C-alpha cells in the first residue's frame, strides 16, 4: 500500500473520534444530528478501508441514512411538542422556564463527573494496554468458514455466515426488528398529516424518478448478495429509503395502504424465515439445516422475503407510530368482556 493510503487511514482514524466529540459537545441538537449523519458516512468509508464492503453498505444505508432520518423526525416532533406545550399552559411554562437554566449541559454535582471522568480514563488506559498486549487470535473462524463454503450454497462468505452457518442469529435479528416495530406501534399513533399538503415540484419529480430506481437497486442488492457484497439487510435498507421518500412526499397511495396489508408485509420476513426453519426440521435436518444441494435457493427465498420486511419495518419505524385503524376495526379488537366493573384507575 502506498503511504498515501496510510496517511488516509491516519486521517480517518483521527477524524472519527474528533467528529464524535464535536457531535456531543455541540449545543444545538440539529447540528448534532447532522454531524452524526456525516460521522456515519465517514464510518462507512472506514469499513471500505477495512475490506468490509457488506458492512459499509449497511452502515451507509442504515447507520447514516435511516438512523439520521429517524433522529431528524424525532427532533421535529420534539420541537412541535414544545411549541404546543407553550400554547397549552403559557403561565406555568413561563415560571418553569425561569428557574431552569437554558438547555445546555447542566452542571449537576461536579464531583460525580470528575470522578466519572477519572475512572473513564483509567478504564481507557487498562483497555488500551490490554489491546496492545494481546495479539489477535490467528485466523479465528475464517478458515473454518472457508472450509465449509462448499456446502453453504452461496459464494459470498458473509452471506453464508449470516444466513447459513449462523442463520439462527439472523432469525432472532429479524425478530428484534419485528419487536421494534411492535414496540413503536404499541406506544404511539402516527401523526395525521393533513390531506392537502402537496409535495413541492422538486420532491414530486425526485420521488417519481428515484423510487423505481431504488426498488430495482434493492432487488439487485438482494440478488447479488449471494456472490458479492449485498444481501437482505442492505436491500431492505434501500427499500426503506424508498419508503421514507414516499412518506416524505406524502404520496396518497401510501396513506391508503390498508393496515392488514401493512401488518402482513411487516410479518412476511420473520414468518417465512421461521416456516422455512421448521420446514428444514420436517425434512429430516436440524433446525435451519437447508438441504445441501438446494441451500442457495432456500437462502435466496428467505433473503428476498426478509428484505421486503426489513424495508417495510424500517419505513414504519420512520413513520413513528401505528397507522390509523379505521374506527370499526378498533371496536372489534376490544369487544367488551362480560364482567362489568365501575370505571376505575388504570392498573
Amino acid at each position, binding site marked *: 500500500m502506498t503511504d498515501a493510503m496510510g496517511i488516509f487511514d491516519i486521517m480517518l482514524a483521527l477524524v472519527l473520534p474528533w467528529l464524535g466529540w464535536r457531535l456531543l459537545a455541540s449545543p444545538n441538537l440539529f447540528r448534532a444530528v447532522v454531524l452524526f449523519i456525516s460521522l456515519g458516512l465517514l464510518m462507512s468509508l472506514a469499513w471500505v478501508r477495512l475490506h468490509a464492503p457488506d458492512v459499509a453498505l449497511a452502515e451507509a444505508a442504515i447507520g447514516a441514512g435511516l438512523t439520521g432520518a429517524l433522529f431528524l423526525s424525532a427532533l421535529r416532533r420534539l420541537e412541535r411538542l414544545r411549541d404546543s406545550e407553550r400554547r397549552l399552559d403559557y403561565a406555568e411554562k413561563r415560571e418553569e422556564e425561569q428557574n431552569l437554566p437554558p438547555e445546555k449541559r447542566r452542571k449537576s454535582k461536579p464531583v460525580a463527573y470528575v470522578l466519572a471522568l477519572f475512572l473513564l480514563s483509567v478504564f481507557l488506559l487498562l483497555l488500551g494496554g490490554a489491546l496492545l498486549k*494481546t495479539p489477535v487470535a490467528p485466523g479465528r473462524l475464517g478458515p473454518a468458514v472457508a472450509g465449509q463454503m462448499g456446502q453453504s450454497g452461496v459464494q459470498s462468505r458473509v452471506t453464508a455466515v449470516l444466513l447459513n452457518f*449462523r442463520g*439462527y442469529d439472523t432469525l432472532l435479528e429479524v425478530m*428484534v426488528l419485528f419487536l421494534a416495530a411492535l414496540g413503536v406501534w404499541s406506544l404511539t399513533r402516527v401523526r395525521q398529516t393533513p390531506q392537502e399538503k402537496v409535495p413541492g415540484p422538486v420532491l414530486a419529480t425526485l420521488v417519481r424518478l428515484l423510487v423505481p430506481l431504488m426498488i430495482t437497486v434493492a432487488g439487485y442488492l438482494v440478488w447479488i448478495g449471494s456472490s458479492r457484497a449485498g444481501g437482505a439487510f442492505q436491500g431492505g435498507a434501500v427499500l426503506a429509503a424508498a419508503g421514507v421518500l414516499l412518506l416524505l412526499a406524502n404520496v396518497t397511495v401510501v396513506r391508503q395502504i390498508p393496515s392488514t396489508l401493512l*401488518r402482513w408485509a411487516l410479518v412476511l420476513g420473520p414468518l417465512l424465515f421461521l416456516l422455512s426453519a421448521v420446514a428444514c426440521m420436517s425434512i429430516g435436518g436440524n*433446525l435451519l439445516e437447508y438441504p445441501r444441494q438446494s441451500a442457495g435457493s432456500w437462502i435466496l427465498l428467505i433473503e428476498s422475503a426478509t428484505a421486503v420486511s426489513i424495508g417495510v419495518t424500517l419505513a414504519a419505524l420512520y413513520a413513528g407510530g401505528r397507522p390509523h385503524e379505521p374506527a370499526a376495526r378498533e371496536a372489534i379488537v376490544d369487544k367488551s*368482556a362480560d364482567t362489568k366493573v365501575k*370505571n*376505575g384507575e388504570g*392498573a
Partner: protein
Amino acid sequence: MPDTPFWAVCLVVVPLFFAIICFVRSSLVTFLGPLAAWLNALAGLGMTLSFVHSGPLRYAIGGWQAPLGINFSIDGLSVLLVAMTAVTGLSVSMYAKGYFSLRIGSAGEINRHGHQRAYFWPVWLLLWAALNGLFLSADLFNIYVTLEIIGLAAVVLTALSGKPAARLAAMRYLLVSLLGSCCYLFGVALLYRSYGILDMTALSRLVSPAPLLWVSLALLTTGLLLKTALFPLHFWLPPAHANALAPVSAILSGLVVKASFYLILRLWGEVFAQVLPFAAYVLLGVLGCGAVLWGAVQALLQKRLKMLIAYSTVAQLGYLFIALPLIRLDPGPSAREAVILLIMAHACAKSAMFMAAGSIFLKAGHDRIDDLDGIKEVLPVSSFAFVLAGVSLMGFPPSGGFLGKWLLLGVSLASGQWWWGIMLVIGSLLAAGYVYRIACHLLVFKASFSSRRGSIPPVMEWPAVLLAVLAMILGLLAGYPLGLLEAGCPVPIHACLEVMP
C-alpha cells in the same frame, strides 16, 4: 415420545410463531395468547420429561458443529430454568387473561385496554421465546441477541401501561439496558478477538489468564450486573417493576431479572470458573450483601405495596450473589443446588406476590399499605396467596427458599467463612420485617373495607395461589428437580477445581 431437541426447538419456535400470528390477527388475541401459553408450558414439560431420559446433550442449529455454528447446550441448569419459566409464564398468562378481560370490562376507555391487550400478548410471547432461547443457547453472541430482545420487550411492556411514571421508568430502563448490552457486546467482541471462539463450552477449555481476558470479563460481567440490578446499579428496577401493569411486573421481577443472573452463574460458575481468582467472587458476594441490606431497608420504608415488592426483588437478588463465592468454596453440588432452589422459589413467590398485589390494587383502588386493613374479608384467596408467597420469600421451612438458605448456610459454615451464612440469616430476618409489615395488615380483621364493586375473577386469584403453594412445597419436593441438576452438569467444574492452587 419426541426427543429433547424437538422440544427445545418447540420452546423457541412456537412462541415466535404465535407472537406473529397474534400481531397479525389481533382480533383473535384473547384466544391465541392463552393457547400459546399452554403450548409453551407443554413444551417445557415435555422437555423436562424427555431430559430425564436422555440427559445432557448439544444440538447443532443448522447442522454446523460447535465453533462455526450455534449450539443449544441442554443441561440440568437450563432445563430447570426453562421449566421454571414455563410454569411461571403459564400462571402469569392465565392471570393476564383475566386481568385484561376485567380491565376492559370495567374501564371506560375501551380502546386503551383493548390496545394494551392487543400488544401485550405478542410482546410477551417474544419475551418468552427469547428467555427460552437464552437458557438453551450456548453461543455468546446468540445470547447477546436474545438479551437484546428481552431488554427491548421488557421496556415495551413497561411502557405499555401508558402512565407518565411508567414511561419515565421505561425510558430509564431502556437506557440502562442499552448501556448493559453495549458493554456485554464489547466483552464478547474482545473475547472473540483474543480466542476466536464464541461457544461457551469450547471457550471454557481454551481460556487462559491474560490481561485482555480480565478486561473483557470485567466489561461483560458489569454489563450483566447492570441488567440484573445488583445493589449499586439497582436504581432503575423499582420504578420500572412497580409502575408496570400487574402481569408485566410479575414477569419482570419473576423471570427477566433471572435471565442475566443465569448468565453470570454460567460464566462465573462454569465457563471461567478455573480462571477466575476467588477474590473476584468475594467482590460480588460483598455487593450481594449490600443489596440484601439496602433493598430490605428501602423496602421497609416504602408506602406503596408494589414499590415494596420491587425493592424486595433487589434484596432477594442480593441472596443469589452471596451464593456465588459459596459455589466457588463448596466442593460438593449443594451450593449449586441451593442457588437453583433460590432462583426457582423466588420466581414463583415473587410472581405470585405481584399477581396478588395486582388483584388487591384492582379491588381496593389503591395500594397504600397502611389502608389495606380488612381486605382479607373481601379478597381472602389473594391475601392468603400474598402471605404464603411472603412466607416462602422469607425463607421459612418447608419452602424452597428455606432449603436453599439451609444448604448455603451449611456450605458457608463448613468452609469456615461463616460471615456469608450470617448475612443470609440477617437478610431473611429483614425479609420477615417487610413481609410482615404487609401481612399484619392483610391478616387483621376489620368489619368494613371500602372496596370497588365487581368481583375479581377466579382465574386471576388462583394462579397466584398455585405459584405460592408451589414455592412453599418446593422445599419438600426438592429432591426431584435437584436430581435433574446433577444429571446435567456439563463440565464437572469441581473436578477441575482441584487443579487450582
